């Protein structure tokens, strides 16, 4: 203990952070080291954090909805009144008191965790430890609670609290930490963290001993309960510290090595400046640039959800010009398939679900699909003409619910939005990349939102959700907009307008970031914030300057979506090979190599059709959006076996995780056996074409035909060894057509076909 304190003090003295202000109050672990102390612990500052740190109020223990052994605490400890009541209530059999003011040592809350009385949760601290003394002192001093502060406008806060004893609820201003970043050199290196709470009454207190710690990546750093971080292996991550409602994310970097060979251009542009800076910091050597064939197939899938045609591959590979990749990006951004695929993605983000927007009475006439198609078309048109993203978002956010303007009102009319809070969660998820689910019932320790924040945000959507026809408030309201500003609403106001105005402000922390991050995540299979819809203090971006620059540039460009796609797709970072080198094999968060990812469900479905289509149908099978799963079929195909197996989202929940891009065994069985795959090969226009020639005794070139199979499926020329095996097989079957069918089936079953790499 002494040693730890020494280190902590030294760190404190050495640091010259901006917050080295008043001398903080000594930590509770020192003040309560002796039983004889006169200090009085505070319920909010000490007792509840201690119970939290010991895990008493976790969902597995007394924080469960049923409680445990008759004793129930609020989950994660943010309901001070209920917890205080629970502590003062008698135990289940009425024999003992949890808090015995007359004979404090007989209180169950000290006899249980010291195992002086039987405790299913085991011994949590030693008798005579500071924890023990702290709880005893609290009981001795009257076991006071926390008086709720100004109840504010939250609807439930008026509920009577008959035990208004103890200090008024205090507001944690900030949680300061030392050091502000950790740089490790070798496994086993250790650093002690010190956490200082800054309260609204101007006091500072060292709360390290009452803070909970978590490592975001145990393979990089482990952290113990005392806040001592130990290096495990190379990489970069964060240690997250939680105390009261504060969350601190302390960056940890442990370089992979000191690279001496760099393939990085000396003068990187755009996003590469920030990606490369981080790579240097973490000591990662990026992979080499990918091949032209890899690039073409990759960008075709990520940008347009479509495989390149064999001709396109051939022409691209023959093109010797320097700027052909940039020209390809520009060309693809003009294609209808770019608009189709990104309209589909935007439908994912905004929750375009036919079942949810069909009225109950008219579904017989396919109303749901018709409306979902209108929603899709509406977005498609805007993506195609590159309408600024903020205008697209405003077209949904502010849409006239009677359909009297050119907005898209269906977003608000979904039946899944039963209550204002459902609408609030949907808006936050779609446009801000924020998950509010937890705050519906309790404040989550890893996130900033309280139930009051959530309830006030939900109130904005009261009138819309209930009527689904009117977007105007009926009463005067003053509401806090997700802790940013207070909004005054007068009767007749459209409550969505101030939200949209706030989203459009350049300093809005989420609106632009959420979108650029989602687009980035689609190209890299990993967001700068990941998961991309979890912008929380405990989930910081892996590269904050990169996210800031990209979001800032996006806003400066006038929310130009094509600008954003171009920045990403033309970067060196995007165009790296998937082949790892010695340093970056384990890196998945710094974009040092391309991460192979399963091709999305819609693209797999369409790709199988494209690979087997007749030569003359190659462009139509790509361009006829009516028959593309990335196009209009997106809605109708949802729920089919193929879409379920490959993880197309139903768009029924607010989570980007609804789209599953992981490979599964069922996918392997699908590509081998499914009637759909058999049908694609049996009805293949291209194989018919070959068969007609073969039946007409036209002499065929097996070499050229086999090469076609590679170009059609994996967008490259076969290697000599592959070609030899293929032609050998074609020579062994009764007809070339039959051999080609085998070959096509085999290629549709390769990893290379199913992965974007």
């Amino acid at each position, binding site marked *: 203990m002494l040693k730890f304190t020494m280190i902590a003090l030294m760190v404190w003295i050495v640091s010259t952070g901006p917050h080295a202000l008043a001398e903080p109050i000594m930590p509770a672990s020192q003040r309560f080291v002796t039983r004889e102390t006169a200090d009085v612990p505070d319920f909010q500052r000490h007792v509840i954090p201690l119970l939290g740190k010991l895990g008493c109020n976790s969902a597995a223990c007394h924080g469960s909805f049923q409680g445990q052994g008759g004793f129930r605490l609020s989950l994660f400890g943010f309901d001070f009144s*209920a917890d205080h009541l629970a502590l003062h209530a008698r135990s289940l059999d009425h024999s003992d008191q949890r808090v015995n003011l007359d004979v404090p040592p007989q209180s169950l809350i000290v006899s249980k965790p010291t195992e002086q009385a039987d405790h299913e949760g085991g011994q949590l601290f030693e008798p005579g430890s500071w924890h023990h003394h702290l709880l005893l002192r609290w009981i001795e001093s009257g076991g006071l609670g926390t008086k709720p502060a100004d109840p504010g406008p939250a609807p439930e806060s008026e509920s009577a609290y008959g035990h208004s004893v103890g200090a008024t609820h205090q507001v944690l201003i900030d949680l300061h930490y030392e050091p502000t970043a950790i740089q490790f050199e070798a496994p086993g290196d250790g650093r002690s963290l010190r956490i200082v709470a800054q309260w609204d009454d101007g006091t500072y207190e060292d709360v390290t001993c009452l803070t909970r710690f978590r490592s975001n990546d145990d393979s990089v750093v482990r952290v113990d309960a005392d806040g001592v971080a130990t290096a495990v292996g190379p990489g970069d991550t964060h240690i997250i510290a939680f105390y009261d409602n504060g969350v601190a994310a302390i960056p940890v970097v442990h370089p992979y090595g000191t690279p001496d060979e760099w393939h990085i251009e000396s003068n990187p542009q755009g996003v590469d400046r920030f990606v490369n800076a981080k790579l240097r910091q973490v000591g990662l050597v990026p992979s080499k640039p990918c091949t032209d064939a890899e690039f073409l197939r990759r960008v075709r899938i990520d940008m347009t959800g479509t495989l390149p045609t064999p001709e396109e591959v051939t022409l691209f590979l023959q093109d010797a010009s320097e700027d052909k990749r940039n020209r390809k990006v520009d060309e693809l951004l003009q294609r209808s398939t770019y608009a189709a695929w990104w309209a589909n993605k935007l439908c994912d983000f905004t929750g375009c679900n036919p079942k949810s927007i069909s009225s109950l009475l008219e579904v017989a006439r396919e109303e749901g699909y018709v409306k979902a198609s209108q929603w899709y078309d509406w977005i498609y048109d805007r993506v195609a003409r590159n309408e600024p993203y903020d205008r697209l978002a405003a077209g949904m956010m502010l849409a006239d619910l009677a359909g009297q303007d050119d907005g898209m009102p269906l977003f608000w009319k979904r039946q899944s939005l039963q209550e204002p809070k459902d609408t609030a969660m949907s808006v936050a998820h779609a446009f801000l990349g924020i998950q509010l689910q937890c705050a519906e019932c309790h404040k989550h320790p890893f996130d900033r939102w309280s139930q009051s924040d959530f309830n006030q945000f939900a109130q904005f959507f009261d009138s819309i959700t209930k009527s689904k026809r009117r977007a105007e408030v009926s009463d005067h309201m003053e509401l806090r907009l997700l802790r940013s500003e207070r909004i005054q609403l007068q009767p007749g106001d459209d409550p969505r307008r101030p939200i949209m105005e706030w989203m459009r402000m350049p300093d809005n922390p989420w609106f632009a970031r959420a979108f650029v991050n989602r687009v980035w995540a689609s190209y890299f299979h990993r967001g700068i914030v990941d998961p991309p819809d979890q912008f929380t203090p405990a989930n910081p971006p892996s590269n904050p300057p990169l996210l800031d620059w990209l979001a800032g540039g996006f806003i400066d460009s006038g929310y130009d979506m094509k600008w954003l796609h171009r920045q990403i797709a033309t970067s060196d970072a995007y165009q790296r090979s998937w082949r790892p080198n010695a340093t970056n094999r384990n890196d998945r968060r710094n974009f040092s190599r391309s991460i192979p990812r399963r091709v999305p469900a819609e693209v797999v479905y369409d790709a199988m059709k494209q690979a087997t289509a007749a030569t003359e149908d190659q462009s139509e099978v790509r361009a006829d959006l009516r028959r593309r799963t990335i196009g209009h079929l997106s809605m109708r195909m949802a729920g089919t076996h193929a879409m379920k197996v490959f993880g197309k989202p139903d768009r029924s929940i607010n989570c980007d995780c609804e789209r599953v891009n992981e490979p599964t065994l069922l996918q392997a069985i699908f590509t081998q056996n499914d009637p759909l795959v058999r049908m694609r090969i049996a009805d293949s226009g291209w194989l018919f074409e070959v068969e007609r020639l073969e039946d007409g005794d036209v002499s065929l070139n097996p070499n050229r035909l086999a090469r076609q199979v590679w170009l059609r499926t994996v967008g490259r020329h076969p290697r000599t060894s592959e070609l030899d095996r293929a032609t050998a097989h074609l020579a062994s079957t009764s007809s070339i057509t039959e051999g080609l069918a085998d070959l096509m089936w085999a290629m549709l079953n390769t990893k290379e076909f199913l992965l974007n790499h």
Partner: protein
Amino acid sequence: MKSSILVVAFFVTASTSRLPAADSHWNQFRGPEGDGVSSASRLPIQFDEFKNVRWKTAIAGSGWSSPVIWDNEIWLTTGDLQTGQLRALCVDAQTGTITKDIKVFEMLDRVVDPAYEADSPHLNSPATPTPVVDDDYIYVSYGSQGIACLDRETGQRRWERRDLRIYQPVRQGSSPVVDRQNLYLAFDGNDQQFFIALDKRTGRTRWRADRNVQTALDAKLQGTSKPGDNKKSFATAQLITVQGQRQLIAPAGEATIAYDPDSGDEIWRVMHPGGFNVAARPIHANGLVYVITSGISQALLAIDPSGRGDVTDTHVAWSLPRSSPNIPSPIVVGKRLFMVTDKGGIVRCLDATTGDEIWRERLGGNHWASPLFNQRRLYFCGKNGEVVVLPATMESPEPEARNQLDASFIASPAVAGSSLILRSRTHLYCIADGYRRSEEAIADESRPKAHLVADQSSAEMNASKEIDWDAIYEKALQSNPAIGRKVDAGDATKAQVIEYLQRMRSETGKGMSSKSKKQPKPGATKGNVNFYAIVIGRLMSKDIELGELELNIDFVLSSANWAKERLVGKRVRLVGVAGPFLDNLLEIKRGETVKVRTGSYDADANTLGFGYKFQVLERTPPFQPSDFGVPPDEFRGFQGELGGKVVEALGYEVLLEVSESKSAHNSQALDATAIHGKRIRIEGFYIHHQEMFADLHAGDFIRVSVAHRQRDRDAVSVTNVLRKSDP
């Protein structure tokens, strides 16, 4: 009176406008929040039988349940002690037309102690619990008589519970409460008292909590003529949230208990000895729960719901004995509480935080209906038919209006848009500003008569008049396909059609007045119409992406008589297949036979639409007329009894494999035995034997009387006999 005719003309045009949106889901007892507060921007203040009455519809039977509203539908329950039927009605909020009249249950036998016989008929009705509507479904409760979940659109039942039988000498009063998962009901009878949560999707019991209330009164009443009288209660529970925790406040006899709605665990209880027969629904406001007890010690209790366990001594913030009502629930607005006594109609305004009385005002009359609050006005509906509108002011107010209707109100008022929906003991009113009923309408006003149902009793009645209404009904179906479509779609029952035909006949007899020429619109097969049918045919082409197929139709299972002519033997396109059904379509080959359920038919394009409910799209063996119950010609015209094995019992139709037949004297069949060993489709179980149908399963042996009146139809109709038999 001349001027009133002009007014009529003017307002009829206005009647096409839609009802405004506020309170569009007055879906449960006392409205969206169960507190009697309406957020409508304006409700009518002055009205009578003429003025501001948009429509008035007679409601048969006896029911004190309050109307509930979902979009354009008003739902009510009613019961008829003569016919022994418990019904649910759906009324169109725009027109007042009864669009659905569903027989939910036949009453089960009820034993009532003589001690209650004198008071039970005027103390309660057979249909007092208010139904609750939740999206697609409506939940109706008749207490011990049964609970059912009905599909709002089709009227078909999703589930029912008739096993919750307790002794309720004064019947049930407590209305069901619904949340995302459960339907909650109180059963506070003389013999058993419990609170129960049912899975709202299946009706299965989620939890059940015995009330477990013991008081000194128990022993006192033992041996009297009304033992357990102190156990009865009639109150509807209220869902509230306290410090983030949901609570279900459920008053019982002599105690009010809060349960955890998820687990049924008791959170707290307040004992109120002598306070039973509770009828008021609790209200949560100002951090307090307001409960009004009745029985022999009536009181208004204000309970702090943050406690645990028995909080009688610790958490009753204040209580007000005696001056509270026995039946109507209170209204709480901000820091004010308003209530009206059942006897004498004394309105009190209290400080809701302390219970101190601010003013009192005597309205007169007896008040069983709970009051309504809207835009700073209180509405009190009396048993004497007077609706008093009182400003909710701080000082003793003067009534703003006293509206006398030819009515008696027990059900509580409801709100649809800016209309008041009032249910009297005989009628349903829609009170809306700017409307006026004509003198003629009032003169023509029908008093509700007993339900005309096409069951045995009405058959007897018909026989005595020597009019075969069944035959007229069948004829009407042929001559007017629109009627058939309505019946198919569940928009009308056979009973309603017959009632309509009877009305038409009587009106024709005395000369039809111009205003009642409301005939069903002709034009059966124009445009896109609902068409719920099973279609069987060979697959000619398919598009597994756009979800379309073409069928050569072999057979259509529908009672719409145009269907056969239009569809059978034709090549017809079907559109709208989506989702997993595309997988089914993928696996069916051209030339194979498909069975598909349709939802619509576009006559202009001769295109069927895929059904959207109970979806079916599957491969089936090649069509054999006998498999589908198409009768041989020799059998056509049969009347009499059939015995055999049930092959399929779905959608109120039975496919029967016939083993024996017994012709009636009027049978027209050339050879009834031609059906032996074959299948026949029997329909009409929705009208006859609806309840027993639920118990029919494939493999059962039954004896059933049928009539094949329309020889060209492939199905026969069930008549009065249906019983299970031995093989």
